[in-house]
């Protein structure tokens, strides 16, 4: 067998830093060649033509052939021997637990099919990685297979490992839809969770079961001969009867017999024994080994894969490597899996572990701890954590993650599942020896969106860190600061975020540079957090400076999300073109739209802002709606407030000042609004009050907003004075902005000119009015800032009638806004609730949703609720509308998040 563990990436698979910090073994888009290669046939294996014929016959007549039997029944070998004789294309996938994730499963299927010569478009394979849950993908996949002539046979080895209903349903769908182009042959320890009886009733199922796989006497004789034992026909028969033709049992027996002084006696004893076969045989095999071999086998049985190096470390014996190689050469149930690694045969390994636990219970934890250390040293984090957990050493497990700065993936919902899952059993409320377990709990709470428990765990960690000298535990300190930074930003606590960013920046200098370099996501998070703090403090230039450094870090951006913040900062300072570029870049991911959870709400709000400033109200509305959907899934106070700001301005542009004022009020309620956002909301509120005819309230709001004497606020104040008819005060307020000239940001200069024009026209100074209006229009041209003019249409309209030249030159800017439907009023940010406030579901709808979440089909829901299918569909439509979902999966997810079901 050639070494086939060399991984390769399918085309366009790299998703850059989204995969940063992903633990080894989590795969991502990595395709392991060994999984899609027909296993080699070891030389001790006996050819069994009758089994090969059964499979070939099944494949010829039936879409589905299942080979079932217990471990060691010879299922995989049966399929491999058949595959070697099959003239048509065979695509092989050896399944494992990870394949329960649809993207992994479908990617492997496609890779295997490609390898077998089936042409599959790049688009389809890209879709497998992204939206494998969408029905369109399955349909296109089935269509690609349906045209295969001769049909391709897809072999799925160890199908019992697939338990995810979504994946199995998809597989069933593809098999039924691909028709004559696809044959499926599977091996499984239990009847696979496909609707077997339906295939059986339709005569579309070939079954090769344990009874068929059992070795008959002549096959058993051949197997024994391969292992160098020759027995009399009677003894072979006795052995076959005792092992019930079980391949693994026969092999174990053959191995025991090879060194046995009296084979006949052995078989007689075996046949008479009433013990469980496996344990008995493994004992026999082990008994034939010298003590040090037994020792190495027992100690290394806890490892999934055994390399010479790991064996030496875990067994604490330098000779372990040699012993292992000798065992593999002797076929003693140690199988090479390439790259110098070995694996115990499943059954053999299980019995070894059983023996280890029974004979040396005190040693088990020590062995796991050694294994954890070895994996950790070799950068296999998830494996290291798993062994630490099996050792019952949560402190060690947490240290492995925290001290390596590998917390990043655990902070995001979804991404760090594999690592996070290892900690699922961690007992809460313990007196831990170090801060690391608290930090793991904090990260888990953050990704599960439980800010309260997150803060409590962080406080506990910080409390412990205060008691040790500041030069120690740098990684824990850095991790604590990074988690705090992320949590504060999510909760909208700007002061807390700023303090955490300071601490994180300081601590980043204290950890080893090499560790930090291995986890660029930590640096990204700090930088992104700092940029966000600057953005939400209204230091837009500073925010752009910080965030651009980050974006240049590796040319891309992780989910730390600063591309969106960068877009927002650019939008807020009036650079609409750049904001569009940044926003689009943040959203595009290999040219496909990522699922809502992964989308960048800040980028969507930035795009909404751009559209709004250009008076493209319909487009702004669409972006806001998308942003709202994302915010409902991953809440973010600050971005939510910004979305409200855009929505309020949009309402104002539509002439619905009252709605604008309501949105502002809601955006402010229930949390300490950071000053800059409060000011921005105040400016909109001032305009809304003025537009409703309450110029005093407008003035009061503008005064409150102008607390910091910023030019922007002064201009808004001038606007309010002008609207209230107080020209003198307006001019006084306006003066600094007009004098600032180029130092003021362009949108501020534009608004200042516009107020000046209004005042001048009102006082009869048409020449100055024209100059100012012209200059405002010139300032608006490069970025096509149409909104300021749209908002001032009440006086600009009449004025323009006397200024045909200006109106002609800037026709594009002065056109009435595109207006279709009113902008939505996003609900704002009330305490923990997501931004989107959903219309409550009716009891009936809730019931439908509960059934749907239990994987019932529409027809099944109908029969369960004694209503018609159409009524169920009506309910579903209404549910989708209320939850802003496009399909049932999304509806169920959202309903769970909102705790509606």
């Amino acid at each position, binding site marked *: 067998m050639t070494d086939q563990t060399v991984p390769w990436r399918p085309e366009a698979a790299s998703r850059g830093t989204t995969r940063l910090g992903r633990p080894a073994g989590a795969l991502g888009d990595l395709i392991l060649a060994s999984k899609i290669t027909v296993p080699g046939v070891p030389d001790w294996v006996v050819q069994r033509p009758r089994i090969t014929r059964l499979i070939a016959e099944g494949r010829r007549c039936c879409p589905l052939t299942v080979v079932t*039997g217990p471990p060691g029944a010879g299922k995989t070998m049966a399929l491999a021997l058949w595959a070697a004789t099959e003239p048509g294309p065979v695509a092989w996938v050896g399944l494992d637990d990870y394949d329960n994730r649809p993207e992994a499963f479908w990617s492997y299927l496609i890779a295997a099919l490609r390898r077998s010569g089936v042409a599959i478009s790049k688009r389809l394979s890209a879709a497998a990685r992204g939206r494998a849950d969408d029905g369109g993908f399955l349909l296109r996949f089935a269509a690609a297979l349906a045209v295969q002539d001769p049909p391709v046979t897809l072999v799925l080895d160890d199908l019992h490992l697939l338990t995810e209903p979504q994946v199995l349903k998809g597989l069933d769908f593809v098999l039924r839809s691909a028709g004559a182009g696809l044959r499926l042959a599977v091996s499984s320890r*239990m*009847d*696979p969770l496909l609707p077997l*009886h339906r295939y*059986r009733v339709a005569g579309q199922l070939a079954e090769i*079961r*344990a009874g068929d796989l059992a070795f008959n006497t002549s096959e058993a004789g051949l197997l024994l001969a391969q292992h160098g034992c020759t027995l009399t026909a009677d003894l072979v028969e006795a052995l076959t009867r005792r092992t019930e033709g079980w391949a693994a049992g026969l092999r174990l027996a053959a191995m025991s017999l090879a060194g046995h002084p009296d084979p006949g006696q052995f078989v007689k004893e075996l046949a008479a024994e009433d013990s469980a076969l496996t344990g008995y045989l493994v004992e026999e095999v082990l008994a034939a080994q010298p003590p040090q071999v037994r020792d190495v086998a027992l100690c290394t049985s806890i490892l999934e894969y055994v390399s010479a190096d790991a064996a030496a470390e875990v067994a604490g014996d330098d000779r372990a490597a040699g012993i292992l190689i000798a065992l593999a050469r002797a076929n003693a149930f140690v199988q090479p899996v390439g790259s110098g690694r070995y694996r115990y045969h499943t059954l053999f390994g299980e019995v070894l572990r059983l023996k280890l636990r029974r004979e040396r219970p005190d040693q088990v934890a020590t062995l796991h701890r050694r294994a954890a250390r070895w994996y950790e040293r070799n950068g296999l984090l998830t494996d290291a954590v798993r062994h630490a957990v099996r050792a019952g050493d949560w402190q060690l497990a947490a240290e492995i993650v925290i001290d390596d700065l590998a917390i990043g993936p655990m902070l995001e919902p979804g991404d760090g599942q594999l690592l996070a899952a290892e900690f699922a059993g961690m007992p809460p409320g313990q007196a831990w020896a170090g801060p690391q377990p608290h930090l793991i709990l904090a990260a888990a709470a953050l990704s599960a969106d439980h800010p309260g428990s997150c803060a409590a765990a962080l406080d506990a960690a910080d409390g412990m860190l205060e008691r040790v000298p500041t030069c120690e535990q740098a990684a824990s300190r850095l991790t604590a600061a990074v988690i705090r930074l992320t949590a504060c930003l999510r909760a909208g606590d700007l002061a807390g975020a700023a303090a955490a960013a300071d601490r994180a920046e300081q601590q980043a200098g204290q950890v080893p540079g090499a560790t930090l370099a291995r986890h660029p996501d930590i640096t990204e998070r700090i930088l992104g957090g700092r940029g966000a703090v600057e953005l939400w403090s209204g230091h837009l230039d500073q925010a752009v400076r910080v965030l651009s450094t980050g974006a240049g870090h590796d040319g891309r951006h992780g989910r730390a999300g600063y591309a969106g913040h960068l877009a927002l900062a650019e939008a807020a300072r009036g650079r609409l073109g750049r904001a569009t570029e940044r926003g689009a870049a943040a959203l595009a991911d290999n040219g496909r739209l990522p699922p809502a959870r992964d989308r960048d709400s800040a980028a969507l709000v930035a795009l909404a802002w751009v559209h709004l400033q250009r008076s493209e109200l319909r487009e702004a509305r669409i972006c806001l709606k998308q942003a709202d959907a994302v915010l409902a899934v991953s809440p973010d106070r600050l971005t939510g407030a910004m979305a409200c700001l855009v929505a309020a301005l949009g309402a104002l542009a539509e002439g619905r000042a009252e709605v604008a004022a309501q949105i502002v009020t809601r955006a402010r309620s229930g949390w300490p609004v950071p000053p800059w956002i409060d000011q921005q909301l105040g400016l909109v509120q001032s305009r809304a009050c003025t537009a409703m005819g309450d110029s005093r309230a407008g003035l009061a709001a503008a005064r409150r907003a102008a607390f910091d004497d910023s030019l922007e606020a002064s201009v808004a104040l001038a606007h309010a004075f002008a609207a209230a008819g107080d020209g003198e005060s307006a001019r006084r307020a306006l003066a600094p902005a007009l004098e600032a000239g180029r130092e003021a940001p362009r949108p501020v200069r534009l608004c200042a000119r516009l107020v000046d024009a209004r005042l001048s026209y009102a006082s009869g100074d048409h020449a100055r009015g024209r100059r100012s209006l012209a200059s405002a229009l010139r300032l608006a041209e490069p970025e096509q800032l149409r909104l300021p003019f749209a908002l001032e249409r009440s006086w600009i309209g009449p004025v323009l009638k006397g200024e045909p030249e200006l109106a002609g030159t800037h026709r594009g800017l002065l056109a009435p806004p595109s207006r279709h439907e009113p902008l939505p009023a996003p609900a704002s940010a009330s305490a923990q609730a997501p931004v989107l406030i959903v219309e409550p579901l009716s009891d009936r709808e809730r019931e439908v949703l509960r059934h749907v979440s239990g994987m019932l089909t529409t027809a099944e829901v109908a*029969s369960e609720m004694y209503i018609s299918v159409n009524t169920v569909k009506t309910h579903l439509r209404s549910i989708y509308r209320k939850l802003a979902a496009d399909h049932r999966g999304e509806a169920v997810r959202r309903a769970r998040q909102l705790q509606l079901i």
Partner: protein
Amino acid sequence: VVRSLIYEITLAGQAGATTRAEFDDCHVTMGPGTTILRAELPDQAALAGLMERITGLGLDVIRLDLIAPPLAS
């Protein structure tokens, strides 16, 4: 020669129409507060598959009986 065995699996609670339909390859009867599935199964793999289907639906197995003992060979 495959010897089929008959098993009876007792589940907690009375199964609704949908659940019963899920097991149209078994003989389903209702007991007091229980549902009994009777299935003729060729081997352990089939039994394991059936149990997995049951637990996959979130049903609780409270009893498993072998009804027809294997014929003496």
